[in-house]
């Protein structure tokens, strides 16, 4: 079992704020100032208002709790095959929305639904100029 080698995310202009934020050590979410919706994944518009003119990015607390998870023991994809078993999880963020992530540096047997988790960031080596990182979580 070795650490996950996360595939490099490709940012569209809609998701750039999220990945650049992670590169700065921030978990970035979007809030619509018209209706108050906090949404994830990021979009060019508020999904409810269908308008992006009042959509702002903000740094979330990076705190949340596990909604559900699985201990993946088989995944043939590059970067994950050698990292099995690893914990893939949905985390309900304190700001509201849920995100898919991994819970790292833990004994999988100690991971439970409802457990409190805190964000961390895995930086990446890239051959382009992007300064992205991957938000992951640790048991609090």
């Amino acid at each position, binding site marked *: 079992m070795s650490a*996950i080698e*996360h*595939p*490099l*995310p*490709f*940012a*569209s202009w*809609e*998701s750039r704020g999220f*990945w650049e934020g992670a590169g700065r050590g921030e978990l970035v979410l979007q809030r619509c100032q018209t209706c108050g*919706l*906090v*949404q*994830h*994944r990021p979009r060019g518009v508020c*999904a*409810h208002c269908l308008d992006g003119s009042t959509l702002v990015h903000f740094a979330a607390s990076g705190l949340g709790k596990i*909604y*559900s*998870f*699985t*201990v*993946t*023991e*088989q*995944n*043939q*994809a*590059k*970067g*994950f095959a050698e*990292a099995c*078993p*690893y914990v*893939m*999880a*949905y985390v309900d*963020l304190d700001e*509201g*929305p*849920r*995100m*898919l*992530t*991994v819970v790292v540096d833990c004994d*999988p047997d100690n991971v*439970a*639904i*409802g457990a409190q988790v805190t964000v961390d960031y895995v930086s990446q080596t890239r051959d382009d100029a992007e300064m992205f990182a*991957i938000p992951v979580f640790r048991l609090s």
Partner: protein
Amino acid sequence: MTKNAFPRGAAIAGVYEHPSRFSPNKTEFQIMAESAKGALDDAGLQRTDVDGLFGASMSMGMMGIVDLAEYLDLYPDYLDGTNIGGSSFVAHVTHAAAAVNAGLCQVALVLYGSTAASNSMAIGTGGTGGSRNPDAAFSAPYGMTTVGSYATYANLHMATYGTTSEQLAEIAVTMRQHAGLNPLAKMRNPITVDDVLQSRMISRPLHLLDCCIISDGGGAVVVTSLERARDLAKPPVQLLGCGEAVQHQGVGYSDILTIAAKQSGARAFEMAGVKHSDIDLAMIYDSFTITVLATLENLGFCPSGEGGNFVSNGGISLGGTLPVNPDGGGLSSNHPGMRGIFLVIEAVKQLRQECDARQVPNAELALAHGTGGTIGDKHSGATLILGVDR
């Protein structure tokens, strides 16, 4: 009731399940063409009677349905290449019935073919692929797999309701029992609950034997008006109710335990005007054991959280409360990647009393529910309620 949705009546007049489970020398379109011949022969129709073409496969993308028309040298009046995953063909039956009722076509042919097994495709554990796709950018970096998504559902169900791995295993055991009665099924040797629990863990809590098999295969379904079907070779199977729905992550607040079947099933039951207790058998997409349990609950065959008990002690076996997948399902008969068409085919054969050792005695009303994509993440659901012509 049906009169409102399909005033001219809608029926399935012919079906064919391609017998092959491994076809290294065939293409997807060849399997579809051979299946088309089988279903048209079953109905007593000719290739030239087809004026509506419906189809999907794992490789048909933009223009796919046009490519298929070319392969078959067909010039239909109506085309539908809807691809919503494994449930596509269940939805195609609804779309075809609507098109027939609108007078846009008379004889609709629904096709599927796949060479997933001979291509050594890792359907469940292949990961989500390149993350240059902006949508996949939020799942690929986190090692999402198809099994993994269903496993998060299973874990949440277990934590919420106390569902056990033994209960999930009962589903696999029942499907294997049924497969033993189906000469075409790929996996026919009986298994026990212990066999399932001892099989290799793929994504906790789902073991290898909680997962569908991978095969080649294909099939075809002919949809026409009830009136036309009555003049054809086989007794018509009527479309009484139907529904479609999606479930997904939305903007991050979904109740994952509620799957598309809840919405599509409610609509189908309302349209058909029948009760759950009227249903003689259910064809439920069984990509994984948990899919069956989740679908039965969301369709309303048992309350949420009661699925574990419902599937135990032979509850979904032939002779049980609700026989599910008498053909052995995707867990044991065949799973070429998009299984929905086989749900329709087996339901029709059962209602025509053609199923020999695995026949549900005097079956008059069947439900078929397809799931496309992944529960736990995002998926489509399509429900049909089918009945004998009365």
